[in-house]
């Protein structure tokens, strides 16, 4: 009966496997689309268009100022009322997670872009480049390198926070661990394994990002 109960693992490992699959896919789509939406939000916030700026600022403040749990319920119950098509539970959960993450990503990217000396933009423009060329070739590549650690951190937060989607009945790691708690009347073991799984995922990601970051830094030799 210790913590590493082989019998327990043999009997229930499929719950954990399936849960891990769900957590990974929700996180993956959350990160990918959350980043895309975040880029758009940050560019809106940095633009000179007052409407775009206002919308983006309001969105970011609202998302940062309300609990993810509330946002999740709003998406889960609210979206189906307005959408002309059906969305699966897992899709709704993913949408809630990505909409939340996008606000944080937007602020990270905005800070990264603002951290680049304005002389860089001026030099690019003085060479005849358009604003968007300068962004694409000069500003964003430099900003990206600076924000990678913060962005990686946000991805890890997203994976961990995704556990909250279990409350709307999505069978992720957390949900399945809780199910096993009910089946086996043993609260500790399933939650302990769930923790290990989350840790393996986030630790692997953080190591991978570390390698990626070093690769990028290697490009500029000094610094």
């Amino acid at each position, binding site marked *: 009966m210790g913590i590493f109960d082989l019998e327990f693992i043999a009997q229930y490992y499929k719950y954990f496997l399936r849960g891990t699959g769900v957590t990974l896919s929700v996180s993956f789509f959350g990160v990918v689309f959350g980043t895309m939406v975040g880029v758009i939000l940050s560019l809106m916030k940095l633009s000179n268009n007052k409407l775009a700026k206002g919308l983006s600022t309001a969105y970011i403040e609202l998302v940062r100022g309300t609990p993810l749990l509330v946002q999740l319920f709003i998406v889960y119950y609210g979206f189906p009322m307005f959408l002309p098509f059906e969305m699966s539970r897992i899709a709704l959960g993913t949408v809630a997670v990505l909409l939340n993450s996008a606000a944080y990503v937007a602020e990270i990217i905005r800070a990264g872009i603002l951290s680049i*000396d304005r*002389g*860089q933009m*001026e*030099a*690019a*423009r*003085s*060479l*005849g*480049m*358009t604003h968007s*060329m300068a962004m694409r*070739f*000069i500003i964003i*590549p*430099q900003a990206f*390198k600076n924000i990678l650690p913060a962005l990686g951190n946000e991805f890890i937060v997203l994976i961990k926070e995704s556990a909250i989607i279990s409350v709307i009945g999505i069978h992720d790691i957390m949900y399945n661990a809780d199910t096993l708690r009910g089946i086996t009347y043993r609260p500790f073991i399933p939650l302990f394994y769930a923790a290990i799984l989350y840790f393996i995922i986030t630790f692997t990601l953080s190591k991978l990002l570390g390698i990626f970051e070093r690769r990028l830094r290697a*490009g*500029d*030799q*000094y*610094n």
Partner: protein
Amino acid sequence: MINIINLNKKFGELHVLKDINQTIEEGEVVVVIGPSGSGKSTFLRCLNLLEEPTSGEIILEGVSITDKHNDVNRQREKMGMVFQQFNLFPHKTVLENITLAPVQVKGLTKEEADRKAMTLLRRIGLEEKANTYPNQLSGGQKQRIAIIRALAMEPDVMLFDEPTSALDPEMVGEVLEVMKELARDGMTMVVVTHEMGFAKEVGSRVIFMDEGRIMEEGTPKDLFANPQNPRTQDFLRKILV
């Protein structure tokens, strides 16, 4: 070549440029001097619209660049600019710094752009630095590369904004040498600088600015030897000791 008509620039309440009228002819080397805060850098930056003039008109080769209907990017291609802080792109090699705009903006092929860049690098004796990154260069090397980066776009005018002010003293000479060579080749140049030696040697005209106005202008010989305006006299006395 460049006509500046009633140029005004305000930063909020601050009136930085007051009714500037100037004509810069082809082949001229115009040196702009004046105390700090006199508006000389702002004047230069208005010429390629890095600062948007509050009012007035700037006409380059017959085309108004302050006219919103004209594509400012096309006009900027004709004006190279060199900055006090060099502003090389740190994530690009020296060669990429030079070829990026010719390839992306002018549509040169990579090979053409590389060949031209190497010719320019050879001219300033830095061809062996083609594949290094800017942060491995000295200040003087950076600024010389910033100059040929602007030249790679084959501009009609070169604007210099205090190009030697951020350099260690022993590196000023190598940068001025490149600029003098450009001037001798007949490049039209507008130079904001404190290097009076440069102004005397290659300047065709010196403009003295103070408090947002052009106080006095003339050939370097006249202006330095025989300044008329009391402010010019005062300024020259302070810097020429």
